[in-house]
C-alpha cells in the first residue's frame, strides 16, 4: 500500500516538475535539478515549481492527517480538519485583513492565530465536568463556525469590488505563487506535527473502543483528546496559513485510505498524510495545466468527488478481496 502510494507520489512529482506553462522533458528537469542546462529552466524549476510542490506536499499531508486524526477521535465520518472551527477562525481573520486591505504580509500568521484561537474556544465549549465530550465538541464547532461565518459573509458583502476577488481566491484555497519562504516558515512545524500524529494513532484505535473500555485500558480520555485535537489543529492551521481553505482533501482522503487498508489507525493516519500529499500535488498539477490557472481548492473537489465515488462503488461490489 505504502509502495503504491509512494510510486504514485513520485510519478506525480516528476510530472509536476515537467509540466506547466513552459514544458520540459525529463532530461531537462534532471539537468536543471543539478543546476545545469538553460538558466531559464533552472529558475523555473528551483524558484517556481519545486517550492510550489513542496508547499503542496506539506499542505496536503497536513490536511490528510488532520482529517484522519479528527475522524478517528470524534468517531464521525463527516469530521474534517475544519470541523473544530479552524476554517471559520482563519477565514474571518483573513477576510478581515483582505477586505480592509491592512497588514497583508501578516496574513499567514494572523490566519494561523485565528484558527488556533477558534479551536481553543471550541475545546472550551466541549469541556464538561467529566472531561471532553465528543458531541459537545462537534456541536460547539458547528455553532462557532456559523457565528464567525456570518460575520465573514457580512464583511465580504460590505467590501470594495476589487477585494472580493482576492478574498474569494483565499477562501477556495490556492498554491499560486507559494515560494520557499512559506515552505520554510511552516514546514518544520508541520513535520513535527506529522510525527506526533503518527505516535498518537495507536491511541485512536483505543478511543474507538468506547470511553469505558479506553479508560479500563489505562488511557486518559481528556489528555488523548486534547493531544489529538491539538495536533490536528496545528496541522490544519499551518496548512490554512500556507494555502487558504482547501476543502475536500481532509474529508475524503482518510475515507479513501480506510476503504483501502481498513480501520487500523496506525496505518490510516500516516497513509492519509501520504494520500493527502499525493492528491494535492496532482490537483495542483491539473490546476496549472489549463489555459487559465484554477484555484487548487476547486480542483480538489472536481477531482476528488469522482475518485471517491469510484472507491465507494468498488467497496460495494462483491468481488472485493480482503
Amino acid at each position, binding site marked *: 500500500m505504502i509502495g503504491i502510494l509512494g510510486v504514485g507520489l513520485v510519478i506525480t512529482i516528476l510530472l509536476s516538475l515537467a509540466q506547466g506553462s513552459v514544458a520540459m522533458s525529463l532530461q531537462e528537469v534532471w539537468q536543471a535539478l543539478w543546476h545545469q542546462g538553460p538558466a531559464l529552466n533552472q529558475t523555473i524549476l528551483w524558484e517556481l515549481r519545486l517550492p510550489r510542490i513542496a508547499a503542496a506536499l506539506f499542505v496536503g499531508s497536513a490536511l490528510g492527517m488532520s482529517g484522519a486524526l479528527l475522524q478517528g477521535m470524534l468517531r464521525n465520518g463527516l469530521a474534517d480538519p475544519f470541523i473544530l472551527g479552524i476554517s471559520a477562525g482563519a477565514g474571518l481573520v483573513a477576510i478581515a485583513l483582505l477586505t480592509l486591505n491592512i497588514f497583508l504580509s501578516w496574513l499567514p500568521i494572523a490566519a494561523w492565530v485565528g484558527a488556533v484561537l477558534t479551536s481553543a474556544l471550541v475545546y472550551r465549549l466541549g469541556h464538561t*465536568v467529566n472531561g471532553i465530550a465528543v458531541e459537545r465538541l462537534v456541536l460547539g464547532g458547528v455553532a462557532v463556525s456559523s457565528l464567525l461565518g456570518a460575520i465573514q459573509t457580512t464583511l465580504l458583502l460590505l467590501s470594495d469590488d476589487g477585494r472580493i476577488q482576492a478574498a474569494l481566491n483565499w477562501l477556495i484555497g490556492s498554491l499560486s505563487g507559494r515560494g520557499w519562504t512559506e515552505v520554510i516558515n511552516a514546514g518544520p512545524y508541520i513535520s513535527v506535527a506529522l510525527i506526533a500524529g503518527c505516535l498518537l494513532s495507536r491511541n485512536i484505535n483505543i478511543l474507538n473502543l468506547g470511553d469505558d473500555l479506553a*479508560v479500563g485500558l489505562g488511557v486518559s480520555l481528556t489528555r488523548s483528546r486534547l493531544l489529538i485535537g491539538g495536533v490536528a489543529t496545528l496541522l490544519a492551521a499551518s496548512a490554512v496559513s500556507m494555502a487558504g481553505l482547501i476543502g475536500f482533501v481532509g474529508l475524503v482522503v482518510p475515507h479513501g485510505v480506510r476503504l483501502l487498508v481498513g480501520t487500523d489507525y496506525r496505518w490510516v493516519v500516516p497513509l492519509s498524510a501520504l494520500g493527502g500529499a499525493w492528491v494535492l500535488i496532482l490537483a495542483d498539477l491539473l490546476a496549472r495545466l489549463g489555459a487559465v490557472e484554477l484555484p487548487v481548492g476547486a480542483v480538489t473537489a472536481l477531482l476528488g468527488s469522482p475518485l471517491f465515488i469510484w472507491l465507494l462503488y468498488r467497496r460495494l461490489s462483491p468481488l472485493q478481496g480482503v
Partner: protein
Amino acid sequence: MLLDLQQISGGYDQTSIIQNVAFTLHEGEWLSLLGANGSGKSTLLKLISRMLPLQAGTILLDGKAIHQQSPQTVAQQMAVLPQHQTLPSGITVHQLVCLGRTPYQSWWQWSLTPTDHQHVKRALAQTGMLPFRHRPLEQLSGGERQRAFLALALAQNPKVLLLDEPTTFLDLHHQLELLELLRSLNQDRGLTILTVLHDVNLAVRYSARLALLKEGRLFDLGPPPQVLTPRNLAQVFGITAALIDSPVGLQICAIAASADSATPSVPSTVHAHDPS
C-alpha cells in the same frame, strides 16, 4: 485484600448516586453487586473503574489509592468489561485482543513485543477464540463477541476483572457458558472477579459473596445464604419471594411484586422436591 473501598461517594456531575459505600474484595474471590434498577450498582462499578470521579473516600488497589497511580499502572492490574461495547468497524478479533496490551506499551511503541503476543495468544486460547481470531468482529454472534471482549480484558493480564452485566444480551445457553468460563478463570487462574448482575439466581449460583445495594448505599453483604433473606429481598428488590433449594443450590422464586416493601409476607423457606 485486593480492592478496598473506603467510604466512597460519587455519581454524575454534582449529584452523589453512591453514598458512603465501603467493602473489601479479597484476592481470588467472586463478588456480585445486586440491586434494583437505579440502585447505583453500575455507577459503583464506574467509580471503581475510574470512569467517574470520586466525590469522597478512596479506593485502594493492592494497598495503593487508584486515583494516585498512573492510569496505565492501574490498567495492568484491573481490567473492565463494560455493558455496552462500541464495535470498531472492520477490525478482527486478533486486532481487538492486541489492544489489551496497551497498558504495557510505551507511547513510542508502535507494535507488540513477542511477550505481548504470547499474552494475546493465551487470552484467545482461554476464551476459546483462537479459531475465530481472523474473523471480523462484526461477523460474530453475541456470545462470541462477548468472549472476544473478555479476551481483550484477559490480555491485560489483570488481577481483578470488573464486569458490568456481562450476560444482558445473551440467551440462556450463552449466559451459562460465559459464567462457567469466568468460574474456571476464577478458580484455575485465581482471577478476582467483581460483577454487576441483573439476574439474582445467576449471581447466587456463581458468586462467593453478594453485595446488596439500595438507593446508593450498601444494604447487606455476605455469602448468598446469609444475604438472601425474604426480608432483604423485599427491602432491596420490592418482591415477595420463596427460597428454593434447587439442584444448583439456593435459588429464589419471585412470587409477587410487593406493594409495601417494608413488610415481607411469605417468609418461609420452601424445599423443592428431589429431582430424582
